[in-house]
């Protein structure tokens, strides 16, 4: 089973991003997803910068993949999308059907990202015919539904599961971080830079609820499938995705790696992870329940 680092969902200063991926090059991760997939206004790194990082990671033996923006609104967004797809040395993760259209027209292989809503065998088969060589399960999908899809999976198509991190649950035209500061999105003053792991929403009784990350809304809890790795193995899952956070990402990758390799059992892995997460864990989606629930192993 391979280990992937998902795209950076937050907005960090340029040097922090460069340092982060330099450190990642030395980790036991197999695949690294790169690029700005959340907000077009974020510009600490441009497409060329991401491609440069991809080259370095590829030289370090990683499979580097460039992801496309998830919510496309303007012609300028489409221009960026085409610019990403023009990076022909790298596999592209398509995060909307516009990207699928452009990639399949060029007969390019691609990764069908987690927001394409692939829920059944017919859609999965179609994506494979259009050129998908890998698909990422929707975050809200359960193990039972995945099992049916794995049974019908076209040969040669890899399956990846989002296995660790705050979950990207929703996208909007509105920027909620800017809204918090009574700013409009067009004049957001790049407030996201102040929140390296997003901006927490609590209920009126102080319970942590969601996380604002610009136009994206995330869970406050951290999805953690460390206890389900054996089950995923049995289902033929090929790749686990870990989502970057500002602290402890390397340690988290290391725990997953050792657990996958069989040198660290699930219980020990769980206890090593206690102080590494941004919040308490949840795994409800995997078990077909409300996402915020934590089902005991």
């Amino acid at each position, binding site marked *: 089973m391979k280990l992937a680092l998902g795209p950076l969902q937050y907005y960090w200063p340029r040097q922090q991003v460069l340092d982060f991926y330099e450190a990642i090059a030395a980790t036991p991760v197999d695949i690294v997803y790169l690029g700005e997939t959340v907000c077009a206004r974020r510009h600490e790194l441009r497409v060329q910068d991401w491609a440069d990082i991809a080259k370095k990671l590829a030289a370090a033996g990683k499979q580097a993949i460039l992801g496309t923006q998830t919510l496309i609104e303007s012609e300028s967004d489409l221009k960026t999308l085409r610019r990403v797809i023009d990076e022909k040395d790298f596999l592209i993760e398509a995060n*909307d059907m516009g990207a699928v259209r452009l990639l399949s027209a060029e007969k390019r292989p691609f990764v069908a990202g987690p927001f394409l809503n692939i829920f059944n065998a017919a859609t999965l088969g179609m994506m494979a015919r259009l050129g998908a060589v890998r698909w990422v399960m929707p975050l809200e999908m359960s193990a039972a539904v995945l099992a049916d899809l794995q049974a019908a999976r076209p040969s040669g198509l890899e399956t990846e599961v989002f296995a660790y991190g705050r979950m990207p649950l929703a996208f909007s035209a509105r920027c909620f971080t800017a809204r918090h500061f009574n700013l409009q999105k067009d004049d957001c003053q790049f407030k996201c830079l102040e929140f390296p792991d997003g901006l927490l929403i609590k209920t009126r009784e102080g319970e942590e609820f969601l996380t604002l990350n610009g136009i994206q809304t995330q869970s406050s809890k951290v999805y953690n499938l460390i206890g389900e790795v054996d089950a995923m193995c049995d289902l033929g899952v090929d790749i686990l995705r870990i989502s970057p956070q500002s602290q402890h990402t390397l340690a988290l990758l290391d725990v997953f790696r050792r657990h996958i390799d069989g040198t660290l059992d699930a219980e020990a892995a769980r206890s090593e992870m206690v102080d590494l997460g941004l919040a308490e864990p949840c795994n409800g989606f995997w078990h077909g329940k409300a996402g915020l629930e934590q089902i005991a192993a």
Partner: protein
Amino acid sequence: MLSNKPFELVCPAGALPALKAAVDNGADCVYTGLKDNTNARNFTGLNFDDAQLREGIRYAHDRRVKVLLALNTYPQTATWSRWTAAVDKAADFGVDAIILADPGLMEYAKTKHPQLRLHLSVQGSATSYEAINFYYEQFGIQRAVLPRVLAMPQVEHVVKNTPVEIEVFGFGGLCVMVEGRCALSAYVTGDSPNTVGVCSPGKAVRYEQTPEGMETRLNGVLIDRFAEGEKTGYPTLCKGRFEVNDETYYAIEEPTSLNTLELLPHLMQIGVKAIKIEGRQRSPAYVAQVTKVWRAAIDLALKNRQGYTVREAWMAELNKVSEGSMHTLGAYYRPWK
């Protein structure tokens, strides 16, 4: 097949009485759903069984009104045949178009019923012409419903770059998130718009009077608290008041409704083909009221686009039935973003 009008008013028909109310008050099309999770308004007491659907189609077609059937949730492998049977039924009963989100199901419909007109649901999350043209090339969709995320110039840009007819939301409940890309309800309640066809479902709702005020909860999570004298709202989870950095406010969206009456001539001018009224879960009286106002507005704008103004009486009628009695232009008005 009824012919297309230059600009269509597409009205919600949660059940037969609402369908008749929409038809009687000037809808060009009504959209409906079956009594299961094949559509995104899978609510108890709503939607059509076979006899009701046949009767609804007869009633509408007799009055030259089209019937659209929403099959706009994402089918899963184990229950796939429920969705394909629904597509077959739509073709058999003679609905004028089906509204789909799932590519696999579109492929089925296109192969099995090539004569059946396909609309891309808002749940398909297609926000650019590249995405819409994907569905056009793959399945020959003839219309796409835009998610409520684009500003007016962006809508115009989409229209100019696709052969597909564009339908936009004009009035009713406002999703602040991109439809089809929101798992908030699934996260809190386990029930998802994408697969179950519901958001913030009633069965997860609890109202509780406490010393702090009336509390509304969704699967135990406090969505809002209302002081004495404040009107208690339904706990739609993105429209509650929450704390961010010790400030309590509507952190995601106010309990407000979309109303684009003032944009109507502009929407026509940029080539939008149809306007959709949200609200299959609303009463026949609501549907009648809203349909009547929009019919009058569209007729006026078709006759005299330059001289069109929003009548005060229209706004007064619509305000009576709006959620929270507040209106917004949503993303069409760029500063909303």
